[in-house]
């Protein structure tokens, strides 16, 4: 009992004083707490002090207000990662893949624990939490009330055990009992909402027989462009005739308007739009009136039932007119659904979009981010040059704070950033990013995939449009805290660095490349070497390159020596990378290391670039190093560089230490060896 309390982190002592004048202190005044003054005048004071005592009213605020206020003092930390990872060099994800693995690992651990708790509830009866946390307790599969009655149904409904509830319902009805209309409607609501299956059910955690039962092919949802479902999108079950919801609805003798509405919404949600419209027609014929959310669902699924643009728009207009006839006030979702359907109406949609917006303003409904997303995509089909509608939208929504109101709200930032990139307008991108940072707007950025797309496009735009310093500032801020750049993105960054002549940043960039696990990407490694070797830098910058160069060399050698062929193929020497390494060593004044590179050309049968070889020989001449010069010439001759004779002449004239005959010997020997090889090959 005492153990948990030893971990007391803080002890707060309150010393409150109670006034003798306080109203609720009646018992005390009767018991005669007496000051020096009479008790009748609460604000009266001693003669010397004239200040009246006024006790301010207690302020009231909601439970989270203090925490929210405290959290406003904290900004984003550009060196840390998402809060749900453990802040340790070994456990911070370094790549997009690791991000996914680590989050999924945590999630699956929780799932596993939950599964074991539910499997063995007898071991988890002890309640440590006070007040007790319902979600942590084992979920029992038995119910308190077993005999068929309304209370039993109520119990199953409140625990969202839909299968059990449906069974109970039919048990009651078959037994000749009646279920009240409200409860039937509640049950139908739940069934339609969850698509006739128990919520929170994970297929993998079911027992084998349950899985078999559940193994109907869950159709993968394809979106507008016909692409496959992304891994992070949930697989959507389709509506099936004969499901519990369908069965329940058909068993009703006289379905009410609410029952019809639930069914239509369920049908629309589970991709049975035709059936939804048929049900709606039935409902109209019976003279029942649908509610606004039902109309929203119908408008949302218009594109499923009509193919031609005009027909779609006509149907939407019919539905909207019906709303007006029935004097139902449309809400934000109505307009968002309309706009979303207009996305799939081509030019018709473009023409009608502004009318819809005007109506929205007329009714005084504030558009949410989803509305702007739809407008953006209506005005910017992917195959036309971008329009400037985003400027108007940004003028409208700048500095506003949004909360999520629609399921498409979190697509705005990604779409808008995409537009910025298409228009190549970095100022607009900054404005958009500022909006994203305002208040709680970052919550609407979407999932990790959408986030990485957003930041990737943002950084790409900055690389293209901004100077190196500015770009580097943003890079430091975003990588790797919120964004893991891929190889093309890093090549973009390299290009930006090169343009603004910021070669000294390459050490930091290489450090990041290493931690992003991109150090073994051939394209990138060659890009980095090319970046460093293209122009001669100041000597101190050349020295700065050395650790990077050495590390690249070590890495390539590691992969060359690796046992597995697949791993050997990851990273290998190429002519350009070898030449660049040679040049880099020479420029850093490391002639010895440079000469050690020479045998590699022969070993890997690569040809050095002419400039690299010239530079090498020039350095050798300068250093008066006879042996190394000869080795260089020998490699040049071996690889058959076109200007060998010129090199030899140069050496002869500028290096007196070498005997001319030695040079001739090298030339002859190599040429004869080459000729022999040619012969054998033939």
């Amino acid at each position, binding site marked *: 009992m005492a153990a948990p309390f030893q971990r007391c982190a803080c002890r707060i002592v309150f010393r409150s004083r109670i006034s003798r004048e306080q109203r609720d202190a009646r018992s005390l005044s009767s018991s*005669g707490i007496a000051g020096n003054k009479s008790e009748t005048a609460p604000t009266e004071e001693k003669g010397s002090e004239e200040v009246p005592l*006024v006790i*301010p009213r207690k302020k009231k605020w909601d439970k989270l207000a203090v925490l929210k206020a405290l959290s406003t*003092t904290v900004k984003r930390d550009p060196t840390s990662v998402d809060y749900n990872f453990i802040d340790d060099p070994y456990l911070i994800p370094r790549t997009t893949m690791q991000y996914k693995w680590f989050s999924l690992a945590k999630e699956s651990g929780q799932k596993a624990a939950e599964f074991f708790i539910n499997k063995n509830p007898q071991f988890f009866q002890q309640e*440590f939490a006070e007040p007790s946390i319902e979600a942590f307790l084992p979920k029992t599969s038995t119910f308190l009330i077993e005999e068929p009655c309304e209370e039993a149904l109520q119990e199953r409904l409140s625990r969202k055990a839909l299968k059990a509830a449906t069974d109970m319902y039919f048990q009651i009805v078959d037994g000749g009992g009646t279920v009240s209309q409200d409860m039937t409607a509640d049950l139908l609501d739940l069934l339609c909402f969850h698509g006739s299956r128990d919520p929170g059910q994970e297929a993998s955690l079911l027992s084998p027989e349950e899985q078999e039962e559940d193994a109907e092919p869950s159709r993968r949802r394809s979106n507008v462009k016909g692409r496959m479902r992304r891994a992070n999108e949930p697989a959507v079950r389709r509506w099936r005739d004969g499901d519990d919801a369908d069965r329940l609805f058909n068993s009703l003798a006289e379905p009410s308007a609410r029952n019809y509405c639930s069914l239509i919404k369920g049908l629309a949600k589970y991709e049975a739009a035709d059936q939804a419209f048929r049900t709606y027609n039935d409902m109209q014929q019976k003279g029942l009136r649908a509610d606004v959310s039902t109309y929203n669902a119908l408008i949302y699924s218009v594109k499923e039932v009509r193919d031609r643009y005009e027909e779609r728009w006509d149907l939407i207009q019919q539905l909207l007119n019906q709303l007006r006839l029935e004097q139902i006030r449309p809400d934000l979702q109505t307009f968002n659904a309309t706009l979303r359907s207009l996305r799939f109406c081509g030019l018709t949609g473009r023409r009608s979009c502004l009318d819809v917006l005007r109506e929205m303003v007329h009714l005084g409904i504030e558009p949410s981010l989803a509305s702007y997303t739809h407008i953006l995509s209506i005005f910017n089909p992917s195959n036309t040059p971008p329009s400037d509608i985003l400027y108007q939208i940004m003028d409208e929504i700048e500095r506003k704070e949004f909360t999520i109101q629609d399921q498409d709200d979190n697509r705005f930032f990604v779409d808008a950033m995409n537009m910025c990139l298409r228009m190549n307008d970095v100022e607009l991108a900054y404005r958009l990013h500022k909006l994203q940072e305002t208040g709680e707007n970052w919550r609407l950025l979407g999932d990790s995939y959408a986030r990485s797309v957003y930041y990737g496009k943002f950084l790409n735009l900055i690389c293209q449009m901004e100077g190196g310093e500015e770009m580097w500032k943003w890079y430091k801020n975003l990588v790797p805290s919120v964004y893991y750049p891929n190889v093309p993105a890093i090549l973009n960054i390299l290009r930006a660095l090169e343009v603004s002549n910021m070669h000294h940043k390459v050490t930091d960039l290489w450090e990041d490349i290493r931690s992003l696990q991109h150090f073994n990407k051939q394209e990138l490694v060659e890009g980095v070497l090319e970046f460093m070797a293209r122009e001669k830098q100041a000597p101190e910058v050349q020295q700065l390159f050395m*650790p990077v160069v050495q590390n690249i060399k070590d890495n390539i050698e590691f992969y060359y020596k690796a046992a597995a062929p697949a791993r050997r193929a990851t990273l290998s020497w190429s002519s350009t990378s070898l030449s660049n390494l040679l040049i880099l060593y020479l420029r850093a004044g490391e002639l010895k290391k440079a000469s050690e590179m020479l045998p590699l050309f022969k070993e890997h049968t690569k040809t050095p670039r002419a400039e690299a070889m010239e530079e090498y020989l020039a350095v050798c001449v300068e250093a008066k190093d006879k042996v190394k010069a000869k080795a260089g010439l020998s490699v040049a001759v071996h690889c058959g560089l076109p200007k060998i004779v010129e090199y030899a002449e140069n050496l002869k004239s500028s290096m007196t230490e070498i005997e001319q005959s030695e040079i001739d010997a090298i030339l002859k020997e190599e040429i004869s060896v080459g000729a022999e090889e040619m012969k054998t090959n033939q």
Partner: protein
Amino acid sequence: MAWSNEPGHAPGALRQKIVQQNKPSFFPFTQDPGNQRGPQRGRRRRDDGIVNPSRRPMVPRTAKMAEDQDWPSVWPTAATFKPSAVPLPVRMGFPLNRGVQPDKFGNNELRKIPNFLHLTPVAVKRHCKVLKQFCTDWPAALETDEACEEHFPLEVITTDYVLSGPSLRHPDARIVTLKLKLSRLQLDEHARKKILKLVGDRYDKESDILTITADRCPHRRQNYDYTRYLLTVLYLEAWKTEPWEAGITPEDRDEFLWEGSPSEHNILSTMRAIQQADKGGSDTPEEDIVQNSDVQLYKQAVVNQKNHGESSEHVQGYKDSVKRLLGLN
């Protein structure tokens, strides 16, 4: 910074150096791994072979921190020490083998102690600034402590415990203490004496404060109500005079009372005898004798000696007063 592919970890670069210095020993097998530095003990290291570059741990994020970074954002709340997030060369623990104290990486000692990295002056200032909106102005009339005591004579002390455990409750949070200056209650001599009898050691004579603590009920509110009830009952009980209180004798009293005591009687008769000897008549009324300053002095000395115990000052005072009374000095 050098990145070679030799085995090792960037975080513990310093530690590695020390270990490697220990390495070239003539008797590698006699070297006791337990004799190394603290966190290093008993751990085996594979020093041979090239390490796969993709297996290297990330450089701790302290390396990327800017000098002017916003520290409260890095360490916003109370948390266990994380070496990769604290850009300070902290060392802690027992230095083994005449070495230095272990550094922060893999150091369990640093994890055990509570740190206050989230409560830097900047952070506290910011917190105060945003929390101001929840506070009301302090009443101008309550500037001094005396004014507070004057207006709010009752003091209630409760304690809240903040735990990092699954339970929010703490058994000691129910205890309520009520404090009150006894002089603020309307009491006459009898009632005061009686209330002192009733409260016993809950009264502190030095500061004149009565303390009532209640912990018998399970909830704070109940305990609070109970303290109020106790105070009310004590007050009302103190003012009652029971019939048996009339039969009180000097022996029952806690303290010596001059009025009606044998000492008073004796001094009166002595004074009368002296006056009679001086003037031959004794018509001075009793009050005058008592009001006489010498007699008052004598009375004080007797009361002091009886009530506060015998001490050299009291005895000296008694001697002086007697001498004055008898005109001996």
